[in-house]
């Protein structure tokens, strides 16, 4: 029996290449409109990226020295979250609201530009501050200051599961009566180092990614994030019901070929939610568009569910937002429940016949009471999240 209870998702905010608010993002998903486009860097290889186009706020003056693109996206997300946050602050004492966030890049884009300055001029720019702009804890500081939450906090950095794991942490902290509510989620930003790194791994596509397609060539990287307010109780249309975590124990940068760890994470999420595979109505796949990842995830889903459940990857819209993906896609799972439709799995056609799952290539109307969302990462870190209608 699970020792954790479902949490109310009382507010969320999202920002990625599709837009910076719920309705804009929803519209793009419904219309099948991708946010992928040209990379904002000179790179010696071809690729496309999902860049946030939203006008981002400046940080308040007391936080000015913490300014990075990541911090500004975070500030945008906190602002969008504020009505829900205000209710949470009224309901719970500030030190009983935790802040658990994720990032894989932290302030790497700021460090990358500062380092270029160092190489060219022999010194860092005057406004560059390694501790306040590069470190992983910087995101935590900025969000705590902007949100008024004063409970325990930390940043998870497990690459592409970074912003999914905070959902698990929050469930545990609330179940253990350490906090009553938490701000969870994460943000990553584009940088040349990440793009070059994925290119070096042979994992980057030179055109918009095509998850689950037989013509897929790899990942398109994106940026953005999402924050959610989860509470012990409260008015919410969607509940966070279970989170499963596992390790592949297989390879530092490749998935287990049969998706063993992925399946284990999904099983654990279902166990925590107290439901069987039959109770899941749809899956938001990790679906990055690499040959190995999609095949392994497809095998894991097929072996566990054994029926043609709809499986959608949203990476074709936003790109793979890495440390922001888990939270963004948990929000997408919640949207499916709230709106009663699943977006098309953009770029999936022609489907790969070797991947034995049902991937809708059109918007699918339906009643989605319970949706599972997957995130998998370097080092064999796997997370599955179950959300359901309240």
């Amino acid at each position, binding site marked *: 029996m699970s020792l954790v209870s479902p949490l109310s998702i009382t507010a969320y905010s999202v920002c990625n290449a599709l837009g910076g608010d719920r309705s804009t993002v929803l519209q793009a998903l419904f219309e099948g409109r991708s946010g992928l486009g040209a990379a904002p860097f000179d790179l010696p290889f071809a690729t496309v990226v999902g860049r946030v186009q939203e006008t981002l706020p400046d940080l308040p003056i007391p936080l000015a020295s913490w300014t990075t693109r990541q911090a500004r996206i975070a500030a945008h997300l906190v602002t969008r979250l504020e009505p829900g946050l205000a209710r949470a602050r009224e309901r719970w004492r500030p*030190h009983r609201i935790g802040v658990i966030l994720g990032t894989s890049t932290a302030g790497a884009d700021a460090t990358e530009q500062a380092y270029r300055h160092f190489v060219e001029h022999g010194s860092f720019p005057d406004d560059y501050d390694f501790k306040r702009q590069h470190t992983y*804890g910087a995101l935590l500081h900025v969000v705590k200051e902007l949100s008024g939450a004063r409970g325990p906090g930390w*940043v998870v950095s497990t690459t592409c599961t970074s912003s999914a794991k905070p959902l698990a*942490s929050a469930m545990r902290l609330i179940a253990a009566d*350490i906090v009553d509510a938490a701000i969870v989620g994460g943000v990553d930003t584009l940088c040349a*180092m990440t793009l070059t790194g994925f290119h070096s791994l042979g994992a980057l596509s030179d055109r918009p990614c095509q998850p689950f397609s037989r013509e897929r060539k790899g990942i398109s990287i994106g940026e953005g994030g999402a924050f959610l307010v989860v509470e012990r109780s409260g008015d919410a249309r969607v509940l966070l019901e279970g989170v499963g975590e596992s390790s592949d124990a297989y390879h*530092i940068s490749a998935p287990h070929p049969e998706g063993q760890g992925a399946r284990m994470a999904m099983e654990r999420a279902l166990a925590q939610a107290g439901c069987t595979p039959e109770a899941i109505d749809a899956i938001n796949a990790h679906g990055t568009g690499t040959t190995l990842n999609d095949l392994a995830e497809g095998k894991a889903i097929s072996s566990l569910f054994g029926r043609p459940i709809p499986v959608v990857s949203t990476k074709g819209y936003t790109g793979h937002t890495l440390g922001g993906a888990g939270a963004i896609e948990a929000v997408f799972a919640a949207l499916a429940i709230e709106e009663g439709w699943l977006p098309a799995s953009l770029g999936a056609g022609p489907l790969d016949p070797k991947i034995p799952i049902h991937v809708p290539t059109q918007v699918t109307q339906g009643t989605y009471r319970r949706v599972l969302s997957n995130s998998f*990462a370097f080092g064999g870190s796997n997370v599955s999240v179950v959300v359901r209608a309240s």
Partner: protein
Amino acid sequence: MTGIERELIICGVGLSLPGVGNAKAWLHRGHTEGSESPSMPSGHSLDKHSRRRASPLTRALSDAFTEAVEQAGVDAKTVHAVFGSALGEASTMVKLLDQLWKEEDMTPMGFATSVPSTASGMVSISTQNRGFTTAVCADYDTVAGALMEARGILLTTENPVVVVCGDETSPARFVPDDESFDLLATAVCLCLPHHPWPALARLRGPRIADGDLPGVPLSDRLARNPQVCLLDLVAHVIEGRSGAVRLDRGAGAGYVVDVRVSRPA
């Protein structure tokens, strides 16, 4: 009683300090630090493939993890693990930046091991641990955050958890010399009072508290390591001292834990 007030058991400790080796050797030496030419952490429990690619930080974290797990007698294949580091693999990242701006080819393995969860991944691969591991960062409150995450895992899964915190200094170009520090990784293995593993000490917290609580006397270079307070906690355990232990040496939010030693490690 809230979850933070429930008593946990420390059933194993581990330490990797170049030139010293492990926690027992450190105690035996009376807290003195390494030899004048500190050795690279061995990373002996990493598989050969991982060890060859592991940074000094990942090796140190792995060594501390292994010592704590072996002392506790918990199963390395199933124990959960929380790895804490404020800076992560910063030196590996700087190598990548050098490659980027010199327009050299980036090494794929260098990229894959430049992330803070490198130790978490390599340890899970080497021990065949399919439970789950995680990697957390919170500047000078990383130890407090890691202990809080471990407490949540322990109270909801009832499986033992190893907390391993360590940092290697920021690359020289990024911080002045008087802010650089020595490599250190420290570990504690935690379980619940009804578990069968040996109770070295009982732990409550972290909680916020005012007041000065001096840590173990150390060189300035070691004392500046953001994770040094887990060493302060381990020192209490291996020396049989009960009391409150500050988790940030004044640089963080002011978290402390309360330790009641059952028997010296």
